[in-house]
């Protein structure tokens, strides 16, 4: 009772501090660098790749001028970078690293290893579409390709969320009920290079929220240990993998606990999903990442027009918070899942995940529409969201089975046509 009162009072006091006062304009990349600095990471193995490079440039600058005490090593590839990150964490250092797209895929083998080593690093991935064709523009295929690796996967929508989720990720990853590495994802360009107001937490407050990393059995003189060793007995392999699975599932609860403490310290509230005007809504749009901001705007507009619609933003992708998703989408008349990725031969990855979370659930929505948009940096407009929403309503009225929609606007088609004309030396659509 007293404790509750104290927390309320403390919380109240903190709320009194006007947060905008300390807000600084910065890019998502800079926010990520600030998070690493505030988490007082010991070790940063790095390798440059667009659009992530600004993060390590910032950290290199702070280390060079003495503002930050950490060891930064530029390796010769992301594969080596992630290896060093993992062994660094097993040696007792708090490790931060970052990459994008091709880099993440180049390190792919080590994602599984670092997770299997139970090395609680935090890796920031700045989403960028994967070659071929090679591009610099964002989508989520790189991030989502890691979903079976054992990493905890978190996706930020804003620059502030990038900073906050990195701090929370360390809490979750280093928790002994989890002890798995995390990826905090942000969208390339839309967040990485876009300046937004970000409130920088005080270092003392971060220290109170995030205690010093203390690994159980690091490599030390006089203490023998063997890590990453071969197992040749199949049941042993299964045993370790099941352990990783259960530890990952624990991360839902641990993340929620960390978020509620985070709120006490910093007065910002997070959860595994974010419900935007959703509770009383009849229809839901499911999205993740920076385009959720566009989705939220669409929701406000449709609400003004009299439609009962809300948005569910997926913040945690692994572990997949099935219970929260079921609860959020319970009894909705229809759901639109907008995927900013494409699994050729299947469709939208998030759509499949949402369907599997809802299948077998008694109160599941009868209509789930798969929409793919924003692949390879293609923009998403309110009109497109309106189009798919109207299609969903049409399916509901007519009883038609909804078919997946791959968004492509008239103006985009014209642009592609004119480029193909140059490429082929004639009107390819006439051939």
């Amino acid at each position: 009772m007293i404790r509750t009162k104290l927390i309320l009072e403390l919380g109240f006091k903190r709320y009194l501090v006007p947060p905008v006062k300390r807000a600084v304009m910065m890019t998502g990349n800079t926010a990520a660098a600030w998070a690493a600095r505030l988490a007082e990471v010991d070790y940063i193995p790095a390798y440059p790749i667009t659009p992530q490079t600004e993060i390590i440039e910032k950290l290199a600058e702070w280390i060079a001028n003495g503002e930050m005490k950490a060891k930064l090593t530029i390796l010769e590839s992301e594969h080596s970078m992630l290896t060093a990150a993992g062994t660094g964490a097993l040696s007792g250092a708090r490790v931060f690293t970052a990459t994008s797209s091709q880099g993440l895929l180049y390190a792919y083998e080590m994602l599984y290893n670092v997770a299997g080593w139970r090395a609680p690093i935090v890796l920031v991935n700045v989403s960028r579409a994967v070659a071929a064709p090679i591009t610099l523009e964002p989508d989520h295929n790189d991030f989502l390709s890691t979903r079976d690796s054992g990493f905890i996967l978190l996706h930020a929508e804003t620059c502030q969320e990038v900073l906050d989720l990195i701090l929370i990720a360390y809490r979750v990853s280093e928790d002994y009920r989890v002890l798995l590495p995390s990826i905090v994802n942000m969208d390339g360009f839309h967040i990485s290079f876009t300046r937004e107001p970000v409130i920088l937490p005080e270092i003392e407050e971060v220290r109170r929220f995030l205690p010093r990393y203390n690994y159980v059995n690091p490599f030390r003189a006089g203490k023998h240990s063997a890590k990453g060793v071969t197992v040749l007995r199949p049941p042993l392999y299964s045993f370790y993998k099941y352990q990783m699975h259960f530890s990952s599932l624990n991360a839902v609860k641990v993340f929620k606990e960390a978020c509620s403490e985070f709120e006490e310290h910093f007065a910002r509230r997070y959860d595994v999903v974010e419900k935007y005007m959703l509770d009383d809504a009849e229809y839901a749009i499911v999205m993740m990442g920076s385009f959720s901001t566009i989705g939220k705007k669409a929701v406000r507009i449709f609400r003004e027009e009299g439609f009962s619609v809300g948005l569910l933003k997926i913040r945690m992708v692994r572990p997949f918070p099935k219970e929260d998703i079921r609860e959020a989408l319970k009894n909705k008349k229809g759901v639109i899942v907008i995927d900013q990725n494409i699994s050729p031969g299947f469709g939208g990855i998030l759509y499949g995940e949402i369907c599997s979370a809802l299948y077998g659930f008694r109160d599941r929505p009868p209509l789930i529409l798969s929409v793919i948009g924003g692949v390879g940096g293609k923009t998403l407009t309110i009109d497109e969201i309106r189009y798919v929403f109207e299609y969903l309503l049409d399916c509901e009225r007519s009883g038609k089975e909804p078919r997946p929609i791959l968004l492509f606007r008239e103006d985009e088609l014209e642009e592609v046509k004119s480029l193909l004309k140059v490429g082929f030396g004639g009107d390819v659509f006439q051939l």
Partner: protein
Amino acid sequence: MEMSSNSRYRSIKDLLSEDYVVAGTPLCSGCGAILTLRIFHKILGGNVVWVNAAGCVTLMVNYPFTPLKSSWMYTAMACAPAGAQGIRDALDILMEKGRIPVDQDLKVAVITGDGAAYDIGLQSSSGAIYRGLDFYYLCYDNEAYGNTGFQFSSATPLGSRTATSPPTPLNPEGYKKKKKDLFEIWRAHKPPYLATISPSHPLDIARKIEKAEKYRGPKLFIAISPCPPGWGFETMETVRMARLAVETGIWPLKEAIYGEVKHTYIPRKLKPVEEYLKTQARFRHLFYPVKNAEIIQTIQGEIEEYWREVYRRELGENI
């Protein structure tokens, strides 16, 4: 043999200190790699973490057993030097921040086969050497992918039979390419210490590690590692094979300090390479059913050419 007057290792008796690789491993009997590791580890001492890439030796540490009295970190095939980098960097920054006392520091050593060193891990080794990482690298070179059943690697010598270079009437010589010169590739990085070693010459190994220990930075060793099942010889012959490799001159014992090469054993008279080749099943097709004198002569010629240059450069003799 170079008489190293200031060495603490004057005779083989000086090596009889503690063993850090104890009996009981699942590796093949007669394995040249584990023999080299045993000698190597005696000199290095117990406060070591070995960082390993996929290879035969990976199976030495098999949960829940390890023959090592030191620590072990298995990474993946291409990235053991990067794993060493992570451990070294972490220990360094934690000591710098005063979070761990300096007496908890460890030597960081990489151990890989030739597949990892010459092929898939060449990039990560080059990176680590270039960065001046303070570590040891022990490459046990059995001249093929031994653990997967003896397929050729870029360390395989001319004329060897491997599972992927079978001698046939169309391809009588077996492996057609020359062994990659990893020593020269590593030497181009000008590391503080680089050497070739052989388990047949334990004093040479001891003195080289003793010398290397004085340097901060990459300390690199390439060891000839006779492989009974792959090469095809009796398991008790391992040391004889390694000695023949040295005495025929096909495996020179040398070191390079900041890139300056010096041979630590210069045979006054080379044994004919035939003596080495004919004892191993991997070269059997060069002798049976008919002798392939041309290939044997090519191998012999290259060895002689190599040593002529050494005699000229290091002894001032023109032969």
